[in-house]
C-alpha cells in the first residue's frame, strides 16, 4: 500500500461542546488512527466519547493507533477520555497501539492501569433495603443504650472513689469547669428567664381577667417558675451551652488520642475528665435554677405592674403567701438531676466519638438531643413521683 491510502477515507464528527474539531478517525491499512488535535484541557471542553465509541464498536477495527503531532495542551481531560477509550477497546477486543501516543501520556496511562482494582474494594451495595436499615438502626440503638448504662456504672464507681477521696482529678479542673458552667451562663439565663416569666404572665392574664382574678397571676408565675420552668429552661440552656461543649471537648481529645494517652498512663478518663464536669454541673445547676426562678418572677412582676395595675408589693406578697418554699425545693432538686443528666449525656457522647472531625460535630449534636430527651423524661418521672408522695 502506498502512503496516500492512509488518508484515503476520513471520518469526522461534529463536536457538540466545541466548534473546533478535536479528533478525526482515519482509516489505515489494518485499523483506524485517531488523530488528536488542538487543546485537550477541561476548560476548553472535552468532546463526548460516546459517538466515537459507538463508531468504533460498529466498525470493529483490528487495532487503533494515535496521531498526536497536532495535539497542543492537555490535562486530565485528555487522560480520562483515553482511559475510557482504552477500557472499552479492551472490552471489544480492539488492540490499542499505546506506543503511538506521546511518551508522557503513555507513561501516565500505564501508571493508571498498573495496579488492578482490588477485588471487593468497591462497595457493592450502596443502598440497603428498608428492613435491613431498620434492623441496623435497632441494633445500633440497643448498643447505644447498653453503652450508656455501662458508662453510668463507671461514673458511679468513679463517684464512689471521689467520695473516698481517691479519685484522680485536678481540683483546678473542677473550679475551671464550675466557672465555665456557672457565672458565664448568667447573662443568657437572665434574658431567657425574664422572658419566660413575662410569657407565663401574659398567657395567664388573658384567662384570669375573665374571672377578675388578676392577682392570681402571681400564683401562676411563681408556681410555674419554681416547680417547672426555672429548672427546665436552665437545663435546656445548659444542654445547648455546656453539654455540647463537653461533647466537643472530649470528642476532640478522642480524635487527638489524648484519651488513649490518659488510659495508657493508667488514669481513668471517667475520673479525670468526666467527674469534674459532672460535679461542676451538679453544683452549679441548682444555683442557676434559683437565679432563674427569681428572674422569672421578676419578669412576671413587670407584666403585672405594667398591664394589670398589680403593684410590686401586692405581687410579691401574693407569692410569699401562696407559693411555699417546698415548690422551690422541688425545682432545685430537679435542676440538680438535670445537671447530672446533661453532664452525663455530653461526656458520654464525647467519649463515644469516632476519630474524625465530622464525628465531633455529630457528638455535639447528639449530646444536645440526648440531654433534652433525658431532661423531659426525667421531668415527667419526677412530676409523677411528686404527685404520688404529695409534694
Amino acid at each position, binding site marked *: 500500500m502506498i502512503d496516500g491510502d492512509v488518508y484515503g477515507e476520513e471520518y469526522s464528527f461534529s463536536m457538540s461542546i466545541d466548534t473546533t474539531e478535536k479528533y478525526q478517525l482515519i482509516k489505515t491499512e489494518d485499523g483506524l488512527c485517531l488523530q488528536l488535535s488542538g487543546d485537550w484541557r477541561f476548560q476548553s471542553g472535552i468532546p463526548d466519547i460516546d459517538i466515537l465509541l459507538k463508531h468504533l464498536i460498529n466498525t470493529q477495527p483490528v487495532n487503533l493507533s494515535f496521531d498526536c503531532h497536532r495535539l497542543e495542551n492537555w490535562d486530565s481531560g485528555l487522560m480520562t477520555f483515553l482511559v475510557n477509550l482504552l477500557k472499552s477497546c479492551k472490552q471489544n477486543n480492539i488492540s490499542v497501539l499505546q506506543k503511538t501516543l506521546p511518551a508522557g501520556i503513555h507513561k501516565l496511562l500505564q501508571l493508571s492501569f498498573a495496579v488492578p482494582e482490588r477485588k471487593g474494594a468497591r462497595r457493592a451495595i450502596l443502598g440497603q433495603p428498608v428492613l435491613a436499615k431498620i434492623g441496623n438502626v435497632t441494633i445500633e440503638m440497643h448498643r447505644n443504650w447498653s453503652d450508656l448504662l455501662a458508662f453510668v456504672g463507671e461514673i458511679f464507681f468513679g463517684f464512689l472513689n471521689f467520695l473516698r477521696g481517691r479519685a*484522680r482529678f485536678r481540683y483546678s*479542673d473542677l473550679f475551671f469547669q464550675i466557672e465555665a458552667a456557672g457565672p458565664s451562663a448568667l447573662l443568657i439565663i437572665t434574658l431567657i428567664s425574664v422572658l419566660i416569666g413575662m410569657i407565663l404572665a401574659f398567657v395567664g392574664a388573658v384567662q384570669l381577667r375573665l374571672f377578675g382574678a388578676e392577682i392570681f397571676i402571681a400564683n401562676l408565675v411563681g408556681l410555674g417558675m419554681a416547680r417547672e420552668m426555672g429548672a427546665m429552661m436552665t437545663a435546656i440552656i445548659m444542654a445547648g451551652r455546656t453539654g455540647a461543649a463537653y461533647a466537643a471537648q472530649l470528642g*476532640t*481529645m478522642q480524635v*487527638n*488520642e*489524648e484519651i*488513649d*494517652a*490518659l*488510659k*495508657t*498512663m*493508667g*488514669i481513668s478518663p471517667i475520673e479525670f475528665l468526666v467527674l469534674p464536669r459532672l460535679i461542676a454541673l451538679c453544683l452549679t445547676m441548682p444555683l442557676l435554677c434559683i437565679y432563674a426562678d427569681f428572674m422569672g418572677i421578676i419578669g412576671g412582676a413587670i407584666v403585672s405592674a405594667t398591664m394589670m395595675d398589680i403593684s410590686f408589693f401586692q405581687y410579691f406578697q401574693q407569692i410569699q403567701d401562696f407559693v411555699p418554699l417546698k415548690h422551690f425545693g422541688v425545682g432545685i432538686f430537679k435542676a440538680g438531676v438535670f445537671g447530672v443528666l446533661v453532664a452525663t449525656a455530653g461526656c458520654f457522647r464525647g467519649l463515644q466519638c469516632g476519630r474524625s472531625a465530622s464525628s465531633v460535630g455529630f457528638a455535639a449534636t447528639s449530646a444536645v438531643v440526648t440531654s433534652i430527651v433525658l431532661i423531659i423524661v426525667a421531668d415527667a418521672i419526677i412530676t409523677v413521683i411528686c404527685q404520688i408522695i404529695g409534694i
Partner: protein
Amino acid sequence: MAEIPHFDIRNLTIAYGDVIIQEKLDFTINRGEVFVIMGGSGCGKSTLLRHLVGLMEPSIGDIFVDGVNLWQSSSEERNQIISRNGVLYQGGALWSSMTLAENIALPLTEYTDLKQKQIADVIAYKLSLVGLAGFEDYYPSEISGGMRKRAGLARAMALDPDILFFDEPSAGLDPVSSRLLDDLILELRDSLGATVVVVSHELASIFTVGDNSIFLDPNEKTIIATGSPKKLLETSDDPRVIQFLTRTT
C-alpha cells in the same frame, strides 16, 4: 534458666467486629531490644500497637507482659502494668488544656511522691533531652507538630518506663529531627536498658534502630517474616519483604 521475655504474644487475632485485620500472631519481645513492627499502610500495625499497650482487648489470643497475662488479670493489675508503659502517639497526643510542664507533671504527681521542686527539675531535664528546654509554659497549640511530638516523648519518658512504644516516630518530622529521634531511641536502649517497640515504615529508621522485627502483610493477614531488619534484607527470599526493604516495585 531461660529469661522470661518482656512481651510474649500468643495466637493473637485482632479484628474490628467481624473484620479480621491480623490473625495467628505469635512473637516475643525481649528485654532491652528495639523491636520494629513493619508492614505497608493499612496492614494493622497501629492497631497491633494499641493491643500491646492494653488499649484494645484481643478478639482471640493472649498477651503476656513479664509472664503475666494482661487480660486475665484484674483491672487494677492491668492498670498497673499499663501505666509502666511509655507511649508516644502519632501526633504526640498532649493534653491540650495543659501546658507542656503540666503534661509531664501529671504522671509524676500521680505515681510518685516527688516534691514540687523535684518535679520541676525532672520536667526541665526531660524537656532538655528532647531539645525543648525552656518550653515549660507553652500550650500544645502554641508549638509546631514536630515539637509536639518531641514533647509527647518527654511525657512518655517522665516515669522512666522500662518499655517505650513509638507509633510512627518519624512521621511529620524533618530528616534531621528524625535522625536525632533514632539516636535517642538507641541511647534509651543502651543507657537505661529499656525495651523499645517501634511501629514504622521509615526504612532509614528501621535499619538504624531495629534489633528485631516482624513484618505484617495485609493480604496474608499475618506475620510473613521475622528477624533483624538488616538480616532480613540479606537473607529473605520473600519478594514482598524484599520489595518493602529495598523500595522496588
